[in-house]
């Protein structure tokens, strides 16, 4: 049971957050982790809205043996990221020293992977496990 939110305008960011929060609550994440997950969703959805124009945030529940958690998938067909190392570097994000951006997402979540092809788009998957 996956669910997705299309990101076209800024209000869709709120919808994506809401979806993420519902799933996080359902899985039993505490309030701090809920806030972390929704902040990560916000960042990813905002990146789509600002840099790709449009895309999609999908939330999936995941299981790995005894571990349970959720994955945020951010997918867009925007311009892509030419230098991944640069965007994953602290202090270089477009957030202007706010610590947000993709390094921020990586810190908030437990697992993080990114694929991007210039001209084709970007796919980010990030997992948070229940403790």
């Amino acid at each position, binding site marked *: 049971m996956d669910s997705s939110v299309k990101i076209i305008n800024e209000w869709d960011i709120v919808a994506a957050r809401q979806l993420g929060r519902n799933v996080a609550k359902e899985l039993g994440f505490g*309030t701090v982790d809920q*806030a972390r997950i929704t*902040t990560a969703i916000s960042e990813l959805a905002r990146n789509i809205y600002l840099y790709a124009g449009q895309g999609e945030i999908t939330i999936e529940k995941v299981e790995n043996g005894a571990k349970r958690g959720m994955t945020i998938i951010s997918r867009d067909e925007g311009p892509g990221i030419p230098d991944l190392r640069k965007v994953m570097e*602290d*202090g270089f994000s477009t957030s202007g020293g*706010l*610590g*947000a951006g993709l*390094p921020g997402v990586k810190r908030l979540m437990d697992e993080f992977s990114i694929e991007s092809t210039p001209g084709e788009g970007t796919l980010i998957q990030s997992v948070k496990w229940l403790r």
Partner: protein
Amino acid sequence: MNFRDTMLDEYKEILKTYINDQTEQALYMSQKFSRKSIEFKISPEEMISLHKTSIMELEPELPESLLLSLDILLEVMMSYGLAYREHQSLRTIQRELINEIEVAASMQQTLLGTQIPNIPSMDIGAISVPAKQMSGDYYHFVSHENGAISVAIADIIGKGIPAALCMSMIKYSMDSMPEDSQAPGDVLERLNRVVEQNVDPTMFITMFSGLYNPETHMFSYSSAGHEPGFFYHAETGEFEELQAKGLLLGVDKKAKYNEYDRKVEVGDVILLMSDGVTECRTEDGFLEVDTLIGYIEKYIHLGSQEIANKVYKELEYLQDFQLRDDFTLIILKRTI
């Protein structure tokens, strides 16, 4: 036991103490608590959550609106938490960079090391102090097989690591200079070609090159836009600027460098320097040439190394111990 396991109880205790009677003691305890929570990497959002849990347990009758307000506070603290974590990670990176620069600086010292020649007729001293960790000044001595001595002093316009990298190249080309091209003009012409071909066009190098012949006691020199040195005539007690015309290295590959000569008598002193000496800045503006000469005069009777050290100490004091530019001073004094 781990702080994470006990922090809820600790925090609740502090909160309870303070709610019961508002003592400074409780406030001090909370300061200590926050230090510890930073040490254990407790994020701001976790603190809000901890606070909410504690207060709910201590005061079950609190109005719902107050508890809800803490959700907003937690959300607001998320970005502070992120900024804080980024700051922590940047600090780690900064520490690594500082270490790396320290290693590079000590390597530079080894790499650029030069031996002060030991000849009977000339007492030579040198001091070179970088303003920051990496120096953009450079000096070099060569003792030739025929007994002559070459001296070079260079200043790379631009500071820090790029200047240091560039300098290694200068040093290498000087080391591989053939024995038969000792003439200062030739040295500069060769180096000029090297610099012109290999260095970024925004980087310039000034250089003074000199050659002392201990048999004739002639000192010949050329300059590539470098700070003029001074010549002290022992007989008259006068200082003369060692003027020389020549283009900076790296500007024009066809540049030619004129050579000038001075006869060095017993007691005469040649002083070569970088602009960190002459452009030493004080509260009242730039150092006047007369003031500089005054300091040199004060110590001119001493040995060369001592003159260099003392003049440096004076100028260091004058600038409140804050060098704005790399400082290099070379002293050559004819003794017999």
